[in-house]
């Protein structure tokens, strides 16, 4: 029996009706959390927008310290990981067993880990140039905003590892499926936040 779209993210309705019925309230609750998390990010953005212009304190400007090509590669890595997570969601919905789900999740994990690795390397380069968070209000706001996103991604990676383990131990129970669906929403949302960071922090910083 086909079901109408009824909650954010991929719906399991057409292949697993029981899990689909369980999903609606749980996913909606998680959706409320994600919106609240967006408010947190928005305020960090607002702080950054003011600080990056008004709080340079005679120190380096955004254009001095940003490595745009590196930020572009990071964007591509995160975008690719969003797509591979989409493939994992499809495997969860349409392939009852087989290695597809674990393969796509593992690939998503590697892309996410690559993103974090590059980000840490960028931070290290900036700090080596003397652009530390203590240097100016602009740099405090920059590290606060970008690292908050990085910590979210790291939490997503830990979450992914735990779910890979649960998939192995518990198999594809309804509980594990619902957790995967929430992780998918979390992951896609972090990609949206990064699009904003790439545009309003990196591109704006260099273009100004």
């Amino acid at each position, binding site marked *: 029996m*086909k*079901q*109408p*779209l*009824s*909650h*954010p*993210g*991929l*719906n399991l*309705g*057409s292949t697993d009706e029981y899990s689909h019925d369980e999903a*609606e309230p749980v996913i*909606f609750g998680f*959706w*409320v959390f994600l*919106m609240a998390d*967006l*408010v947190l990010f*928005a*305020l960090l*953005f*607002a*702080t950054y*927008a*003011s600080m990056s*212009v*008004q709080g340079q304190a005679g120190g380096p400007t955004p254009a001095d310290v940003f490595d*745009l*090509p590196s930020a*572009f590669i990071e*964007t*591509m890595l995160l*975008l690719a990981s*969003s*797509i591979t997570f*989409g*493939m994992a969601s*499809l495997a969860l*919905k*349409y392939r009852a067993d087989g290695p597809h789900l674990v393969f796509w999740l593992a690939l998503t994990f590697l892309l996410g880990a690559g993103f974090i690795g590059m980000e840490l390397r960028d931070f290290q380069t900036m700090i080596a140039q003397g652009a530390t968070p203590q240097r100016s209000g602009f740099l405090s706001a920059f590290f606060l905003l970008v690292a908050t996103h990085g910590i979210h991604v790291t939490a997503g990676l830990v979450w992914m590892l735990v779910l890979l383990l649960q998939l192995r131990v518990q198999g594809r129970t309804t509980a594990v499926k619902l957790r995967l669906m929430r992780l998918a*929403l979390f992951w*896609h*949302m972090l*990609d*949206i936040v990064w*699009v*904003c960071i*790439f*545009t*309003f922090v990196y*591109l*704006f910083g*260099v*273009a*100004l």
Partner: protein
Amino acid sequence: MNGDAMSKPHVDSYAQDLRSYCIGGVLALLLTALAFALVAFGILPLFERLVALAVLAVLAVVQIVVHFRYFLHISWRSHRDDLQLVLFTSLILFLMVGGTIWILFNLHERMM
């Protein structure tokens, strides 16, 4: 909660869902690459500064809509309060971010 008369029964299939992610992925990659190219290859400095920033902001907003539509599957068809929640959150964000920037930059100009 579900199956109200307003929503047409949505038939989803593997091919359709796969297409959704592929369209979303391609659009997102193109939009990111376009925004990056505009800045990295110095096309933007030809514009006036405000126009340049506006072009980048519009590209970002379009990409966000693409992500919501194709990755998170939020559309006019999604019922319950998902879309309203996104729109209301956007309104709150707009007020908070816009208000903060407006006030702080105004103050900054007066302090110069």
